[in-house]
Structures are given as C-alpha cells and as structure tokens.
C-alpha cells in the first residue's frame, strides 16, 4: 500500500528510525511519532475504507476528534492512529469496509 508520501522530513531533523509493519509490508518510520504520522510518512494515502460505503479515508484532524484514522494495531481494531505512538515491530493493518460478524 505505501507509495509516494505527501510529506517529507524537515531538513536537519535526524530522527531515529524504527521498523513497523503496514499491511504486511515493513516500513522505516521515525521513532516516537504517532501511528497516523508514521502512515503518512510511509506514503499511505488511505488508511481505511468506511463501513458505510467502503470509501477511502485518511487522518483528518490528527488530534483524536474525527475518528477517520481508525486502524488495527497489534490485533486491536478501531484504534485511533493519531493517539498512539509507534513501537518497534508494531503491526498496523487497514480496516476495509464494515466488520464481518461471522
């Protein structure tokens, strides 16, 4: 899923990088940033598709109010990506459409 990022690191900032897994793909992201920031850094354009109509969404407010950055983190679904920081080896998955109950 990762492709061209809309964002770049500020010149002169030299963050440590850690490895996280985004939809099964290993990505290097800055240590200590939010999962939402990491997704955007890694070039993810849409982090989920909606339960109502399966349309693509991405982080919008970055401060825990819009709920558009919901992703699955380490097996827990519906986590606000902007409200958690990345950890080494974190498994992040997009959530596609509505949850199936069976």
């Amino acid at each position, binding site marked *: 899923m990762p492709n061209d*990022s*809309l*964002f*770049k*690191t*500020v*010149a*002169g*900032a030299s*963050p440590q990088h850690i490895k996280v897994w985004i939809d099964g793909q290993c990505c290097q992201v*800055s240590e*200590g*940033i*939010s999962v939402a*920031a*990491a997704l*955007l*850094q890694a070039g993810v*354009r*849409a982090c989920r598709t*909606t339960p*109502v*109509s399966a*349309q*693509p*969404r*991405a*982080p*919008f*407010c*970055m*401060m*825990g*109010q*819009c*709920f*558009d950055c*919901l992703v699955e983190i380490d097996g827990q679904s*519906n986590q606000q990506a*902007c*409200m*958690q*920081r990345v950890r080494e080896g974190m498994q992040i998955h997009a959530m596609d459409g509505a949850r199936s109950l069976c």
Partner: protein
Amino acid sequence: MLSAAPDTRQVDVLVIGAGPAGMAAALSAHQAGLQVLVLDENARPGGQIYRDVAQSPLPAPALLGPDYLHGRTLVVQFQASGIACWDQTLVWQITPDRQVSFTRKGALAGSGQIQARRIIIANGAYERPFPVPGWQLPGVMGVGAAQILLKSAALLPREPVVLAGCGPLLYLFAWQLIQFGQPVKAILDTTPADGLRQALRYLPAALRSPSPLLKGLRLLWAIRRSGTRHIKGVTALELLGQQQLEAVRYQAVGRSATLATSLVLLHQGVVPNVQLTRSLGCEHVWSEAQLCWHPRLDGWGETSRPGIFVAGDGGGIAGALAAQAAGALTGWQVAQQLGVMDAPRRDALAAQAHKERKRQRAVRPFLDALYRPGDRFRRPPDHAMVCRCEEVSAGEVRQMAQLGCAGPNQTKTFSRCGMGPCQGRFCGLTVAELLAQQHQQPVADIGYYRIRAPIKPVTIGDLAVSYVPDPNLPPPQEY
C-alpha cells in the same frame, strides 16, 4: 497502581487536559496545597498548541514562532512541580457528583474511577467543521492537523500546499511553512467580503491590547512579502478526486478556477470541545459572535454543575494566553472553595490573571467578526457530506427538515447522522445550522445532540473493570 479489581480513588482536584489551561489550573491548586491529579490523553503535556514543545523533534523549533516557545516555560514548570499527571489517559465519563471514569493506556494500562471534590475540565477546542464537497477525500486535512505533523513528527508537505479557509491559525501556519522554506502554492481565503466592515466596530476595544493585532499584521505582511499567491474573497470551494484528492475548484470575486493538488489544508476557526460538559448536562449558551455553544460559566469558570469548572478554550475561544490565565484563576477559586485559601488571598493572587484574561479577550470580538465563517461554509450545498462517520449529506439533512425534523436528535434518529464514532464533533454544528436555515429559526433554538457518556468508545472490559458497585444498594437478586 491500577489493579484489575474495581478501585475508587479520591482526589481534591481532578484536572482534565494538560494544555495551557490545565497546567495553569493544576499549578495554582497545587501551590495552594491541594492534592491534584491531571489526566491527559496525549503522551506528553502541552495540549494542542504546545505539542512536544519540551521535546521538539525539530532542529529549530524557534521557527514556529515565539508563541509556541512560550509554552516551553509552562510545560517545564509543570513537569518539575511534582504534580501527579497521568498521560495516555482518557476520561470517558463524569457524573454530576464528580465521579470520573477513565481508561489509561501504555505501561500502566487499566480502567477505574476517581472521586474528585472539584473537577476542572480543560479539554480545549478543535477545528470547526468545514463541510466543503469532497472534504472527506484522502489528501484533505485540517491546517491544525498539518501543524501537528510539523510539531510532533517534523513532517512538512512535500509539494507546495493549498491552504483554504480563514482565521488566525491559517495565516500562522502559512507563515510557519514559509519560515521552514516550504512554499505555499496558494491561500484560498474565505474571509467574508464584509468581514472588515463588520469587525471595525470592535476595533477600539481590540486596540486597547494591541499585541495580538500587531502579531497578526506582521504575519500577514510576511506572507505578502513572500510572494505567496493569496486569493481573497473565495465564496465557494469544491474538492475533487476519485479515491483521493486531485484538485480544488474555487470561486472568488468574479472568477472561478481549478488548482491541481494532492493536498489541501482546511481551516475556518476552532470551536470548544463540549463533549464532557454536554454529557454532564451542563447548561450551554449559543454564542452568536463565535457561532458555537459555550458551557454557561461564572467569572471563575464554574459551570451550572456545582464543583465542576471549565478553563480555557473549552469554555469559549480566547487563545492560549487567555487559557493559561483562566486556568490559574480557576485553580485559586477551587482552593478557596475547598477552604485552603480565604477569599481576599484568592482575589490578590487572581488579580493579575483576571487582568491578563481580559487583555487577551479584548481582541476576540474583532477577530470573530472579521473571520466569521461564511454562510455557505456553515450551511453547505446539498452534495456536501455533513456527517463523515455515517456519510449523510447536507441534502439529506435538508430533506429531513422538510419532513418535519425539528432538531438534531430527530435527524439523528432518522438517518444516523451524528451516531458515528466522532459522536457529532464534526457534524453537530453543521446540522444545527442547516436546520436553522430550513426552519428559519435561530440556531440557538434548534439545539444540539444529546451527548452521552462514554464520550469516546471504550471496551466492555473497560466498563466492567471501572464499575464500582454502590455498597448501599441491596445485593443483586440471584435467579
């Protein structure tokens, strides 16, 4: 330490939010000798404006400007004070008798309840909904969101970016981008054409404390000097693209054009976060000046629920310095109420904060009038998505009004508009405005969603663990 068993703790003062208001309130109460606990959802104190100010990932955080760096002193003072502060802690319920339910993440994860003698809600504000057609597309974010990416993750837009909307934060961020050497593709400025004319009557009051105005003028002047394309008088916006943003179409005075872009940042002001105060049943008042609801507060920040206070932008937008002053004086009022300080001492301590808050508020009526979000951007065209969570359009809301829905709770029942995970944060104001428009009534009469706890989703496990049975109730019947 939190255990799996239900656990009720007691505290004198519980402060919700470690932004400028929350930190200042905690410091006042703590200095007065009270036992204070601060709960904040983020990993570090600072709120939104002072995000990561004490541990910036930027090589030159000074480029963000002096207002940001001012927060460093406060954060460092707060962190050195010894005040108990639980980070990564969500408060999801407050009862009128001041029982607080929380869920804590991270190393000390768990849920529980705390009984507080006084509560100071300092949860701040968030960006006003800006329901432009296509605003739900990937590639569209708030200006505040992009600023958070810069402050907390040292990330800048890769390509020159389009900023659309109006208000001080929009110009501040444009200026910050220029400081970081990142050109702005265009500012599509939706400041209403009659904004300045409407604002002039408030200029004398604003000039009594000219510093915010001067700051603003310097920003605007620097933006002008940079040669940034600044298109004024924008009356319509449309965000275009299939799976993600591809272009923005705008109408300005006498012309319309389309700009190809993969990233647009929207902003038309900020509004108080009233989820907790609403869920508590506090009285709220519609502010025609700020076009949003404020909790009804006395001069010290006390809500209509005794012993529960609001400090900072959560009570009405006045900015970070006003928030800090409000927090300080609320902390002292709480100290007086809890008997550790007499009224004359409280008044002596609070005098400076009252003056500072008044000074900071002086510019507000002028700014609120100048940057008043236009009708079309509060009452969008039919094809705009109003409820992002449940994907309800403005046209559907208007239709429901025609069917007889008088208020947002009825449109919610008919369409699920407002029932999604954001709990109306991003649609409540828009729905009220649309219903006001259709019914030709003031927004104040239309009302708002009934907000209920939990104010963010929690698991059944969290609910179960945090429930503390009332020992006075008879034991449950066994069947």
